């Protein structure tokens, strides 16, 4: 109890000093949830950039993951508090358009990252497109199985833009490999337990599976566990470039993971927001190149995001 009081006091003091003595601009950052490591990386990216740039960031995350009403009301609250700028990931690219319009009406400059909003005025968009990553990582797997054999696709949440585009990347990659047969494409809802059960069921139908294309890392983990339990061997890929994926790549269980690099998106989004405030030139769009993390290049990903340094806008746009 005493500890609780002490830490509460400490937290309050920190909050107080944070709001009273902070120098520089305040930036409100919106992410989708507290559960997906990707958004944690985004938040760390914004904070790392903020330190270098001498600004203050405040994080807004729906307590119920990906909740549209919660993010809407958070946006309304933030408009009242009037931060200098906003870095925004909509939980839904269409449903949050009215919120973006409110931000625009309040004349708070907003930078869109990760998921492109369907409408609204933005300083810039920073992202890596799901389709290119799906295509690149898909080709990596199909080449690794020797350009022939049977594969399975594990889709994310049906109807989500992320899943649709990643799966479209996978299926387009398949077009270059006429000798590969797609046995099934079934939804695992981006969840590891779902993916595990779907994979267990599909294993019953197909005696020979050579590759699994999972639309995110947790589903890839589910697939790996199902294959192992059934004593089957198949190459598996995921998307996210998460720390868990890197560990599995190291141990040879996962072939590769498409890197979406939330950390860099957080860095660059924040840098653009600050440059805009300081009347420095900013690009209208920054698309990060798809990176396939595998056995040959995983080393930099082993550094925890908290210890990484932000690349500058010049470094990203020049190569």
């Amino acid at each position: 109890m005493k500890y609780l009081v002490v830490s509460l006091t400490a937290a309050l003091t920190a909050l107080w000093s944070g709001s009273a003595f902070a120098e520089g601009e305040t930036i409100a950052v919106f992410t989708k949830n507290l559960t997906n490591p990707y958004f944690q990386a985004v938040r760390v990216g914004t904070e790392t950039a903020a330190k270098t740039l001498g600004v203050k960031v405040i994080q807004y995350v729906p307590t119920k993951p990906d909740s549209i009403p919660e993010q809407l009301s958070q946006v309304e609250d933030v408009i009242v508090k009037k931060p200098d700028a906003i870095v925004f990931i909509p939980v839904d690219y269409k449903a949050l358009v009215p919120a973006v319009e409110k931000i625009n009406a309040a004349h708070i400059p907003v930078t869109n990252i990760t998921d492109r909003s369907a409408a609204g005025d933005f300083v810039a968009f920073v992202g890596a497109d799901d389709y290119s990553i799906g295509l690149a990582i898909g080709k990596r797997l199909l080449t690794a199985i020797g350009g022939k054999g049977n594969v399975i696709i594990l889709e994310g949440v049906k109807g989500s833009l992320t899943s649709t585009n990643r799966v479209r990347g996978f299926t387009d990659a398949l077009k270059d490999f006429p000798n590969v047969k797609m046995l099934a494409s079934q939804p695992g809802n981006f969840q590891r337990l779902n993916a595990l059960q779907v994979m267990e069921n599909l294993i019953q139908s197909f005696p020979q599976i050579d590759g699994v294309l999972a639309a995110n890392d947790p589903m890839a983990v589910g697939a790996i566990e199902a294959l192992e339990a059934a004593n089957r061997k198949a190459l598996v890929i995921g998307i996210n470039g998460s720390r868990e994926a890197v560990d599995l790549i190291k141990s040879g269980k996962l072939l590769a993971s498409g890197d979406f690099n939330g950390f860099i998106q957080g860095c660059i989004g924040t840098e653009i927001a600050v440059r805009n405030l300081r009347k420095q030139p900013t690009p209208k769009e920054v698309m990060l190149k798809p990176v396939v993390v595998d056995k040959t290049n995983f080393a930099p990903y082993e550094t925890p995001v908290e210890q990484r340094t932000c690349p500058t806008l010049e470094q990203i746009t020049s190569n």
Partner: protein
Amino acid sequence: MSTATSKAAAPRFALSGDVMQTLYRVLAVVLLCLMLTALSDVFLTANNILNVLRQTALLFLLASGLTLVILTAGLDLSIGANVALSGCLAASVMTLTGSPLLGVATGIACGTVIGLANGVLVTTLRIPSFIASYGMMWMLTGITYYYMAGETIHGFPPGFRQLGSGHLLSIPMPVYVMVLFLAIGALFAQRTIWGQQIYAIGANPVAARLSGVPVERRLVLVYTMSGAMAGLASLIILARINSAQGDIGEELTLPAIAAVLVGGASLFGGSGTVAGTLIGALLLTLVLNGMNLLQINSSWQPLATGIIILLAVWIDTRTRRVGE
């Protein structure tokens, strides 16, 4: 309502009524199995049946504890969040100490304590169970997210993994756990005084109290048992997916409630059985298995799920009416 009161008054008759009810539910499952056998040549293989049972085990464990709560006309909405917190704590204890035993103890202890807290909220503070467990769900989710900070824990000792992916005489371990708790749950609910008191509370709490049933203590017991089962279920999940993440239990609460209700229990309390819940869990698991085996397009899967569940319950109520 009349069946519920007769249950409280004459348990022996209630038992045969419950057995009949369970048999009607079995019919719906058998029909679904026949359909899947006709449509898929791998459905009726030993491997796939064991696969379905292994998947059913998880949902059943979660739903079996919940059945007792629903029998008292209560609800536990916190089981999914309970699974997440119990699972994440168990995972971190196991990773830190390297001891599967300590991990298992942590998971079950955490689940039990959460259940006990629900019971206290419902009895001592007299908060309706729906609200009490809804509030509990948010608190647990908050603690879990804070604790995990978006990270995942993965890679557990092989001994522990046996609980989820191991086999004994070529039958998956979770199936044994399921059968064990089916036996314990059915015996407890149907054959013990406490079990009969739980039915009595659900049928008519006032009458139960007047006839000397310690209502508060039994309520605390059912919520505690539901919490403990959630703790146990979280361990099966960990052992199966070899990892823990803050959202592992999220999408399990509604299917668990559905399993209990499809299995024949009433939200008004006093009617339902643990065996019925097994049938409910089996039915829901078969739906996913069938859709994967038949490779139904992902766009149609939610619609198909809804239709099959409604059809199954409709067939059940129809046949029961004919039976009467």
